[in-house]
């Protein structure tokens, strides 16, 4: 293949057939100087950033959702100043994060708050996690609020504690209900990692752009990147559908 490349690249561009030209461009975008390795290096970073952001996002989301649900479903007439204060802070957090673009948040984190940091990828993961937490918290809150209060009452009336009722009765049902929305959020998160290239996070788009800047040929690096994202998302969607099918066991009639 390398020989074919040498032979073809000797032909002047004007004399190349369509397929010869196609081959040359693809070769330069993928095989030349083992460039395909850098896509996979970027892919690895993408996966790492997604995993880190997911962990931060879910942890934040669960805490925010539980506090906000506890506040919304508090018994009328009772007042807990600490709960009210924390709820207020979390409400601001969700409002600010949902109200500003992801890209702007990245730039503020990368160029203002952590301007002196060289850990671009880490800052990117942190920003994505904080961003994701706001959305995840709303998804979880929706799941907790949608459940019939009778379920929790039945658990409590048997003598189960609040925690036991949440753990055995409320959360499993809420989780099943929110799984499609959570999967959606995960896919958005995975794709949003491409944005950290604006603060020099070394993920797939970062390397694709580096190759473009060397070959002056944009089509293949970006299409390759797109295909790699697509394959990942399709693989994940498949796993999600398997999980949903297993959780649906109790719906059969």
């Amino acid at each position, binding site marked *: 293949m390398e020989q074919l490349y040498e032979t073809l690249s000797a032909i002047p561009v004007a004399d190349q057939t369509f397929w010869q030209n196609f081959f040359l461009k693809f070769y330069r975008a993928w095989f030349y100087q083992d460039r395909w390795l850098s896509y996979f290096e970027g892919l690895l970073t993408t996966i790492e950033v997604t995993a880190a952001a997911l962990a931060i996002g879910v942890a934040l989301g669960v805490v925010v959702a539980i506090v906000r649900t506890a506040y919304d479903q508090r018994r009328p007439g009772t007042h807990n100043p600490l709960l009210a204060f924390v709820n207020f802070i979390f409400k601001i957090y969700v409002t600010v994060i949902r109200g500003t673009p992801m890209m702007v948040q990245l730039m503020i984190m990368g160029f203002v708050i952590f301007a002196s940091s060289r850990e671009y990828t880490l800052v990117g993961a942190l920003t994505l996690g904080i961003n994701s937490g706001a959305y995840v918290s709303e998804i979880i809150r929706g799941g907790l609020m949608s459940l019939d209060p009778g*379920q929790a009452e039945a658990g409590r009336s*048997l*003598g189960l504690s609040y925690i036991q009722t949440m753990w055995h*009765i409320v959360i499993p049902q809420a989780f099943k209900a929110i799984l499609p929305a959570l999967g959606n959020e995960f896919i958005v998160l995975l794709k949003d990692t491409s944005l950290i290239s604006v603060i020099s996070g070394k993920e797939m788009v970062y390397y694709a752009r580096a190759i473009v800047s060397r070959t002056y040929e944009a089509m293949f690096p970006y299409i390759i990147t797109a295909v790699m994202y697509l394959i990942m998302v399709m693989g994940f969607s498949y796993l999600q559908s398997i999980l949903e099918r297993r959780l649906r066991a*109790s*719906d059969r*009639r």
Partner: protein
Amino acid sequence: MIDVKGLTKAFGDNLVLKGIDEHIYPGEKVVVIGPSGGGKSTFLRCLNLLETPTSGAITFKGTDITDPKSDINKHRQKMGMVFQHFNLFPHMTILRNMTLAPMKLLHKSKSEAEEKAIQLLERVGLADRAGSYPSQLSGGQKQRVAIVRALCMEPEVMLFDEPTSALDPEMVGEVLDVMKSLANDGMTMVVVTHEMGFAKEVGDRILFMDGGVIAERNTPEAFFDHPQTERAQNFLAKVLM
């Protein structure tokens, strides 16, 4: 067994219970009837603190359970509750619905809890449905399961909150039969219901609630034949054609 003193409950500005004093004795079957919005369900739900009373005291077996220092979870284990809408856990099998609380709270082993559950299911004729999920059962079957789920905790008193109101008419009988057999076993029961036949047959005492107070207490015979208060007379005139 349960002593209620000066119980009031307000939702915001809406005073639903306006001072209830009542005593429920061991083995007694108390039937609470009355028009909608009269406070029947709220009264029942206050007995196991699913609603927190605004004021007043509820003493269960000598302990004031409205005292924040008392462990309400412990007391609720001894007070079974059956809801209008069954509230079975849809993500668990019937057997798991019944064994969850005994295993977590009474620290029974899985086999012990399941043995007891199957025994109770046999009693209500549903042993063959142990592995089913609630969505596979009819309303009457669900409510029978809900009753035996509460019985798995071996409660000393059973609270029924309109257990047959959400059922198709042909399924009311099977649920009432289970309740009657429970009554015959000597269980202490507080039943909120619109089933006048059941009230007459099983009740030891009728509490007629209207406007947030117990407007009349009477024996079933006296209540249905010669109601003392005008409100009860009006109510019965509408209910018993």
